[in-house]
């Protein structure tokens, strides 16, 4: 492999096999990957779920093989050093990684402590720490949060703190694993702008593994595509190509009007809610009717009230003021388990849900709680497994041994199998690749076409546009727009 002085990453014939787990054979995550990256490049790492993107990111930082069980082949050299020969913690000055979930990488109590953590661990002097912390905080525009506690931050703010904390040690390479997941369009654009500024100002090399490429493509220099652990494409991207990626919002929308004569399945009237200890209302006088046969997509920035609204649909949280009625009956005095007969809600985070020994048990758990017969449970499980593309996985596999995308699909399936008249999903596309998103969108459309009410909260505008009949935008706990889409799948797709 020909390398030059400006080459900062050299991956040669890299392979990695995860060891076997109960019910699963050893998994080859990476297979003979070879590529190199020049200093100052932004490289997009693409590929479907389970294609090996996260494993490759871990190999770049040295987490593979140092802390990840499995067998590694080939070599990874970062700034001339072989990752096998250098402990992970010693690489912090050279390469930094921001993981998908910012919560799991912020372990200090305040933003300032978090940002300075790496510098302290590397034994930096007080003066250097002062300057580095100030630079990182300014660069990520989090000056106003410097003395805030981590617990008080929103998801987007935590993501920025995680990046600032990684950049404080001034690494030459920054690896980001799905940094845009969970970010609203505004925060995602801001983050992309920051990455671009980092490259321009510090000649930083950035590797980004991401499913949402529409925002990143315009600033990226290259895209490396993985499929089943193999490198299948390595393309240079021009600015023109980048800007050719279609953006949401190119579809003309019209104000929403209910279908004449239709009766809402969910009526939300003047709902207000404020979380304990918060000064701002999470929901402030929300009025919304949801109709059978429609897919309603809720969009809005982090903290706009989307998830709170979904949690109200099945009574997990109760409004301080206002009412929620499902199929004509107020739910105020009904227990959650009873409302669950009519409203199936999937919250964010499949790991909070999965516990059964097999995929089939997990999917049939909800129907069994509703008293559905064994035969009917089996039918529903088979339907859901087929429609979510889970039939390729041995049915006896433990849901906990699956990949993130597979776990997410099992979680979605466990709610869909309840066959409730109203289905509400919070960020269902997390961890799903483009193909799986399309299948999920088609599945939700199919449910609506069969008369079910579907409501989805998402930051993924292309997915929302592809399946929504109606798009409701929330801001600061209020509905700011309520628009009818020209037709699902119309326009941008």
């Amino acid at each position: 492999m020909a390398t030059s002085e400006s080459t900062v990453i050299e991956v040669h014939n890299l392979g990695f096999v995860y060891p076997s787990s109960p019910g699963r054979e050893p998994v080859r995550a990476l297979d003979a990957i070879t590529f190199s990256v020049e200093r100052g490049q932004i490289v997009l790492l693409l590929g479907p779920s389970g294609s090996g993107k996260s494993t490759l990111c871990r190999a770049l930082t040295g987490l593979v093989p140092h802390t990840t069980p499995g067998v590694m082949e080939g070599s990874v050299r970062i700034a001339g050093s072989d990752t096998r020969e250098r402990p992970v913690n010693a690489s912090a000055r050279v390469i930094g990684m921001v993981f998908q979930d910012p919560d799991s990488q912020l372990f200090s109590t305040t933003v300032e402590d978090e940002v300075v953590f790496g510098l302290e661990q590397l034994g930096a002097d007080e003066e250097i720490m002062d300057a580095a912390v100030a630079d990182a905080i300014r660069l990520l525009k989090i000056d106003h949060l410097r003395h805030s506690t981590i617990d008080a931050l929103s998801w987007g703010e935590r993501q920025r703190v995680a990046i600032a904390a990684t950049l404080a040690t001034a690494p030459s390479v920054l690896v980001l694993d799905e940094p845009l997941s969970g970010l609203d369009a505004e925060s995602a654009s801001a983050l992309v702008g920051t990455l671009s500024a980092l490259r321009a100002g510090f000649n930083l090399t950035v590797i980004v593994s991401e499913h949402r490429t529409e925002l990143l493509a315009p600033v990226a220099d290259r895209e490396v595509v993985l499929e089943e652990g193999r490198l299948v494409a390595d393309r240079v991207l021009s600015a023109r190509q980048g800007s050719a990626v279609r953006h949401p919002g190119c579809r003309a929308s019209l104000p929403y009007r209910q279908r004449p004569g239709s009766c809402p399945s969910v009526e939300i009237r003047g709902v207000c809610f404020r979380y304990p200890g918060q000064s701002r209302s999470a929901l402030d006088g929300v009025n919304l009717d949801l109709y059978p046969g429609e897919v309603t997509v809720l969009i809005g920035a982090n903290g706009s009230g989307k998830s709170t609204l979904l949690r109200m649909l099945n009574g997990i949280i109760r409004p301080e003021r206002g009412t929620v009625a499902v199929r004509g009956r107020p739910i105020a005095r009904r227990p959650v388990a009873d409302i669950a007969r009519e409203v199936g809600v999937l919250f964010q985070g499949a790991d909070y849900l999965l516990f059964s020994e097999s995929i089939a048990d997990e999917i049939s758990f909800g129907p069994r709680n509703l008293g559905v017969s064994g035969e009917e449970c089996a039918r529903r499980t088979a339907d859901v497994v087929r429609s979510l593309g889970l039939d390729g996985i041995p049915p006896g596999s433990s849901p906990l041994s699956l990949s993130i995308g597979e776990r997410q699909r099992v979680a979605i399936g466990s709610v869909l199998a309840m066959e409730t008249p109203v289905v509400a999903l919070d960020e269902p596309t997390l961890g799903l690749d483009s193909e799986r998103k399309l299948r999920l969108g088609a599945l939700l459309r199919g449910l609506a076409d069969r008369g079910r009410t579907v409501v989805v909260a998402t930051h993924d505008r292309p997915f929302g546009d592809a399946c929504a009949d109606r798009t409701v935008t929330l801001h600061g706990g209020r509905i700011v727009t309520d628009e009818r889409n020209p037709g699902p799948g119309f326009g941008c797709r």
Partner: protein
Amino acid sequence: MPLRRGKRRRAVGARLAYSPGDSFVHRLDPRTRMATVVATTLVCLTFETPLPLAGVLVLVAAYGWLAGLLLPSIRTLAPILPLLVTIVAIDAFFPRENYGTIFWSASIGLLHPVLSTGSLLFAASMGLRLVILALVGALFVMTTSYSSLVRSLKGMGLPNSLTFALSYALRSTTWLADDLRRIVEAQSARALSFEGRVLVREPSRLLALAVPMTVTVISRSRHVTDAMQVRGYGAVARPSCYHRPRFGRRDLLMNCALAALLLWALLSRAGWFDVL
């Protein structure tokens, strides 16, 4: 409705949490504030009569005034007031020793309550002692941020792993509570009820909580370990400490005052002063 309940609760007691400020006490090194708690506790345990304890209470009140948090710190006592009253009442009727005038006595089964001059003084001392300890503890919490405490412990030379564990413990508390809430919500949405005696009748339902909780905790600890490694944890034997707290003149002044207080208490105990 819940909002109204919250308002009422706030009106009765203040929140026992760090309250940022720039007072004399806030600017003390956290180690000095820690020494204040320790010294006050020792002094409280040394004196057994109400008068010197009342003197200590005045000093603690002055300390609270210097912190600009006298009233808020007093308000934090509201939740423990019933407990305080109960302890004082028990001490008044069942003291360690009785002396002076007996105002009232009775025999109720095995119990023989007596109300005397000695029992009232004993109860007053106990009440004062508890109030002082609660107040000085509240003032420590209200003037010391967690991160400054951890930094000062680092400054004292405590091992990096221990100070990190202290810092991480606080974050973990929030994580665990949040994880449990999310799991209960997710399972409730699948029609699993946790209300009433359901869990007693069907303990297997606990698996729906225990398994995701265990998985979440293990998975989080793996992620945190990876993130720590990537951020350089353990790269050098002696990590540095950002904004290491330093002893200043006001710390010297405060520590001298504490030493004088302790000396006074010890000499009194040894009989050098006749403190009632």
